[in-house]
Every structure is written in structure tokens, then in C-alpha cells.
């Protein structure tokens, strides 16, 4: 046995380790520290027995308390579901108009609709529902297929030009250029006339010449004064809002080879409650009628 050195000041043995003349005293651990250490070990053993701890090949040990974070989550979700049930029942039972007039219920529906919108709709319409070229802005007061509560509900449920749904909203504008119904000059003239309908800068002569072409080819759907027709989703041309752009080139492109947006029918994917909530939300974005 190696003879241990005693420290003069404290009378304690040193560990025998020395670093540049500094020696470490071999003091015992403080009692409180030792107890904390032992209690931690005991606690650890109890914890391992009580809670899921040891990973086995396919699963971990369960622990005698039977705790599971998944079950806890499920409980929390159930509790939330139960707390919502009162409102969900009301939403199911009441008409959209009644929901809207009940401020507390409308607030609940708005919040639910907002989160459903973020999950299902924001990919095309944007997180703030402001849309982009080809994807309508839902904040404004311009509606292709109508902005009343029932119109919005129908659109969400059955989609637009969504072929798997028999009741989908459907319309198709002829490709006046692609199918050679109108020639390039006529299309240019009609474009100028359309610009004039919304009081944008246009070539006056072209517009005058395009008026007749418009009356013959376009007015049936878009209306004599460009007021549009919601029955067939024909956009209003006389306002300042444009789905595919407001430049003459955009308009010519749309007349020649029109783009047609497709929106899925959500009636199959979402339950009726969620669609009602979405309707309330979209309607309250500011443009609802």
C-alpha cells in the first residue's frame, strides 16, 4: 500500500494526484450530496419500473403505471373533442345563416374554418386567402360562382370543373384563338374592348371595332356590359379585378387559349361540419354577400 500524504492545513489525506504542485484533498463527498445521489438512483430504479423504459426488440417495457404518451395525447384530444361537441352539434343543426347570426357560434366556426383552410385550401388560395394569378382572392367582393353562404358552400362541396363530382360547377370558355374561331386582329380588338369595359387604357378604334365581335361571341356569357354571369362562372369583365392579369397581353392570351382553374370537390374529403365552418370563414373574409 502506498503511503498517503497528509495535508498540513486540513489534516486530510491527499489523493496522491498532483498538478503543477496543486494537490487534491481526498475529502469524502458531502453527506447531502451522497444522499441526493443515492435517492436519485433509487428514484431511477422506481421510475424504470413504473414507466416505459427499456427498449426491447419490437417495443419497450410498459411499466406498471401503464403510462403512454400516445394515450395521454388521445385523452387530451378526446377532451378537446368533448369540449367542442356543443358547438359542433349546433353547427350541424343550424343553417349557415343561423350560425352567422350567433356571434359565439360564428366565432367558433370562423376559428375552425381558419384552421381547416390552412390545411386544405392555403396551398392554392394562399395562407391569407389572397390567391394569385389563376387562384381567386377570397378576400375581395368579386365572385365567379357567387359569394353568398350557400354559393360558397356549394363551391367548396362540389368543386369547380372537378370531373369526379357530378354536381361540380362547370363551364368552359372556347379557345377563340386555338380553335381559330377568331383571327388575331379580332382577338386584339376584343381585348381592347374588354379593357374599355373596365375603364383601363385602351386603343379607342380597336375597341370600337371589337365591340361587335364581343357582342357576337362573348356577350352570351360575359354579358352585354361585361357584367359576367355567375350561373356559368363567367367572370365579370367590367371591374378592376382580374384572375389572369389585367394587361392586354394577358387578356389576349386568355381569349386565345383560356386557362381553366380546377378546384377539387371537398364534400367527399371533409365532413359537413368542416365545410360549414370553412364557408363561414371564407364568407367572413370580407367579400361575403
Amino acid at each position, binding site marked *: 500500500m502506498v503511503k498517503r500524504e497528509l495535508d498540513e492545513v*486540513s*489534516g*486530510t489525506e491527499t489523493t496522491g494526484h498532483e498538478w503543477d504542485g496543486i494537490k487534491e484533498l481526498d*475529502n469524502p463527498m458531502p453527506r447531502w450530496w451522497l444522499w441526493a445521489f443515492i435517492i436519485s438512483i433509487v428514484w431511477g430504479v422506481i421510475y424504470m419500473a413504473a414507466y416505459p423504459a427499456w427498449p426491447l426488440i419490437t417495443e419497450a417495457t410498459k411499466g406498471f403505471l401503464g403510462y403512454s404518451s400516445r394515450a395521454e395525447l388521445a385523452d387530451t384530444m378526446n377532451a378537446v373533442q368533448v369540449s367542442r361537441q356543443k358547438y359542433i352539434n349546433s353547427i350541424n343543426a343550424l343553417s349557415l345563416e343561423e350560425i*352567422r347570426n350567433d356571434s359565439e357560434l*360564428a366565432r367558433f366556426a*370562423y376559428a375552425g374554418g381558419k384552421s381547416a383552410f390552412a390545411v386544405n385550401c392555403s396551398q392554392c388560395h*394562399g*395562407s*391569407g*386567402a*389572397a390567391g394569385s394569378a389563376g387562384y381567386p*382572392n377570397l*378576400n*375581395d*367582393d*368579386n365572385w365567379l360562382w357567387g359569394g353568398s353562404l350557400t354559393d360558397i358552400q356549394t363551391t367548396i362541396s362540389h368543386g369547380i370543373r372537378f370531373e369526379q363530382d357530378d354536381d361540380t360547377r362547370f363551364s368552359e370558355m372556347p379557345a377563340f384563338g386555338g380553335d381559330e374561331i377568331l383571327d388575331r386582329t379580332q382577338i386584339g380588338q376584343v381585348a381592347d374592348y374588354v379593357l374599355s369595359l373596365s375603364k383601363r387604357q385602351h386603343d379607342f378604334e380597336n375597341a370600337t371595332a371589337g365591340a361587335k365581335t364581343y357582342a357576337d361571341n362573348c356577350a352570351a356569357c360575359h354579358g352585354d356590359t361585361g357584367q359576367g354571369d355567375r350561373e356559368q362562372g363567367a367572370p*365579370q369583365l367590367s*371591374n*378592376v*379585378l382580374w384572375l389572369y392579369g389585367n394587361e392586354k397581353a394577358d387578356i389576349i392570351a386568355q381569349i386565345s387559349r383560356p386557362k381553366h382553374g380546377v378546384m377539387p370537390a371537398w364534400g367527399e374529403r371533409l365532413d359537413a361540419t368542416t365545410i360549414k365552418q370553412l364557408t*363561414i370563414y371564407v*364568407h*367572413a*373574409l*370580407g*367579400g*361575403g354577400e
Partner: protein
Amino acid sequence: MTQDSSSIQNVVDRVEVEAVNSKAKRSLYTSRKKIFPKRASGSFRLFKWWVMAVTLAIYYVTPWLRWDRGEFAPNQAVLVDLDVGRFYFFFITIWPQELYYIAGLLIMAGVGLFLVTSTVGRAWCGYTCPQTVWVDLYLWIERWIEGDRNARIKLDNGAWSGEKLFKRIAKHVIWLFVGLITGGAWVFYFADAPTLAVDLVTGKASSIAYSTIGVMTAITYVFAGFMREQVCTYMCPWPRIQGAMLDDRSLVVTYNDWRGEPRSRHQKNTDIAAQSGDCIDCNQCVVVCPMGIDIRDGQQMECITCALCIDACNGVMEKIGRPINLISYATLNDYKANVKGDTITTTWRSFIHGRTVIYSAIMVIAALLLVYVLAIRSLVDVSVLHNRNPVYTLLSDGSIRNGYVVKVLNKKFNIQQFSVSVSGITGLKMRIAGAKTDIQTELVLEVPANGLETVQLYISAKTSALNAEQNSFQFIVEDRDTSEKVIYDAVFYQAKK
């Protein structure tokens, strides 16, 4: 023991004891020595009993005081409502965003402690600190059950017996009970006391209430029953800070060694005693000390200036017919003057100097500021958040619409109607989200008592009325009863020109 000293023993109880931190044996490697403070009696002890009674009474009674705030707010005078986020203090109710009142009070309390310390020393530690008060309370219980110092030492050293077991169990049970009602009183500050009291007894209170009581009970029991002076010496930062606050003009508990030394155990009327000081080395000052120190070693960090040694020493001085105040409250200047034989110059005026004046000034300024802020405090608060997504919406007729979330806070204790209107841009139209029509002139908003109402508003304007990308306008919220107005400057956005 000599004949002389035994004769003085008849008058004064002399004890062989050593300060726990005695200089001769001060070591970093010793474990705690048990301290068995003897009961002192005298004016400071009496004062401490009173302070204890008053502080404990304040602590236990406060949550039960009632203050009528009407039907929409709690009627508890002092209540920290963590759920709703309100702090009720008699006529003041503070919302979370007004926490600066608390900060102001804390600044005042901090500077107040500086002021007290720079004049009368560690009075906080010695008299009012909860640690001191509860240790005193626990010691009182200990003395009641186990007897005074000698009996307790005897009991502690004695073998386990039925009597020892009974006394120990009784003491700890009562300590735990005191701890329990200490923790129990604490939670009453955070909920309606009468309701919570019933809930606690019937087992219906929240688990957080029970666990808080448990933690507070344990802290009280451990701190006041076992750790005692170690909390002050090792855990609390305040003694160190207070040490830096003291100077030559602060009153501290002082052993007047110029009078006491050399100590002598001989009777004062003997020849030997004629050359010795007044201290008869009876160690009464040491045995009464809750910190277990010897004040005759001079000023030391452990001393909480509870002045019990003054009481003990004065009792002895009276018995042996010497002037009292061998140990006294004195400033360092007094002490120096005494040593030199000069007259003492300390009067109440000597406590007025640069530092104390500055501390007082800070306190007064802070107090005035708080009173001022409280006096001009509005009972209605408005906050407007502009919708960021989308920032603005172009409408089919070419006008622009912005969305705002308007929040109106009603700090009154009655349901209040407010009218909300806008101005600053010509032709502004206002509509509640989801409503069918525009609001004609103003929106009447009913805000719950002691609460807030949120409304999502759409404001639209013609582009002709807008001259920049950002246009300022105002939301005007008016209390319909008092006509108190809050004007909120908001910004109306349109596309970059």
C-alpha cells in the same frame, strides 16, 4: 474554579460555550455545530415578539380581507389571479401589461432596505425577515416542548427514552403543522380564500394548490426547523450585500470592548476586578444568540443584529450593578470616539448624509412617479392590430380595404359600452367581419367588466382619398358614460404607387 468566580456564579449564570465561528478554531472543514439558543428577555426581545406577531398577522390575515368590487370581480382585497392575469390590491387592480407598478414597488422596497441598512444596520435580517420570524416561531415551539437551553442540550445528549421520543415527535408534529398552515396561507393569495379553504378541506382544490402547499410546508419545516442560521450564513446573498451598505455612521450591535476588556471572571468588588473590564465572561451573549456567535469577536458576517445579546448582557449588568449597554447599538464612529475617550457625536442628524439622502430621494421619486402614473391611469385601453395577410384587398369597384383586429380593454368593474369610430381619411367605411352592411357612424361595443372585447373590422377607402402607400388615420374609442376618449393612430395601406 476559584472562590471569586463561584461567588459571582451565584448572581449570574455563567456558561462554558464557544461561538460556532470562534476565531481560534475557525476551520473550513468542520460540520455544523448545534445551536441551542437560550431564551432572552428584555426590550429587544419584547420588540421582536411584537414584530413577529404583526408580521405573522399580516401574512395570515391579508388573504381573508374583503374588498367590494361589484359582481364582476373578486371581492378579495389582495389577490394574485394567475388564471385571468390580474393583481388585485385593495383599490388598485393591475393587468399583466402594467407590471411596472410591481417593478416600481420592488425598486422602492430595495432602496428602502438600503436606507434602513445604512442607518440602523441589518434590521431587516434581525427583525422582519421571514427566515428570522419563522425560526423564532419554531424556537418558541421547541422551548415550549423541550425546555430552555440546558434542558434541550440534556435531552439532545441523553439516550432515547419514552420522554425524549414523545417530546421529539410532539415538536416535529407541531413544526410540520406550522409549516402546513404557512404553506396553506400562501395559496390563499392566489385564489378566493374562503372557497379555496373549503375546497382544500374537501379535497376538491387543484393539484397545484396541494403541491404548492406541500413545497411551502417542506421549505418552512426544513428552513426554520433544521437549516436555521445556515440559510443566513451560506444561502442568502442579502447579508453580503448589506455588509457593503454599512459604514461608520450605521448603527450596529457593538461589543464595547473599551469598557469590557480585559474580561474577568472575578467578582467586581475584588482587587483583581479593579483592573479588569466590565465583562465577566459569563457568555450569556453567546448562548442567547440564534446564530451561535460571540459578538465580542467584533462585527461579523453571521450577525443578523437581532440584539438579543444586548438584552442578555443588560440583564447581567443590572445584576452585577454595572451600567448597561456593554453590548449596545452603536455606530463605528461612536465606538472610535469611546475608545479615544471623546464625547459621542451621533445624533439623529448624523444619519442624514449623502447616501441616506440619495436613497430617500430615490424612494420619494419612485413613490411620486407611481402615484402619478396611477392617477393618470386610463380605465380604457385600446389596441389595434393591422391584418398582415393580406395587407390590403382591392375591391371590384377599385376601392381598397384593410382589416384590423381592435381590442378594447375595460378596466372598470361594470359592463361598459364604448363607441368605436374612425376618422382621418375621407369616406372611410367600417364593417364588422361577416356583417351584411357597413356601420353607419359608430360601432357600439359592449365590453365585459374587468375584461376585453375583440372585434375584427374591415375599413375601406376610395383610392382617391389615399395619397400614399401608408396613410394614417385614427380609431376613436369613447366611453359612452364618461365620454373618456382614447385615440389610436393606425395605418391604412394600399399598393405601392
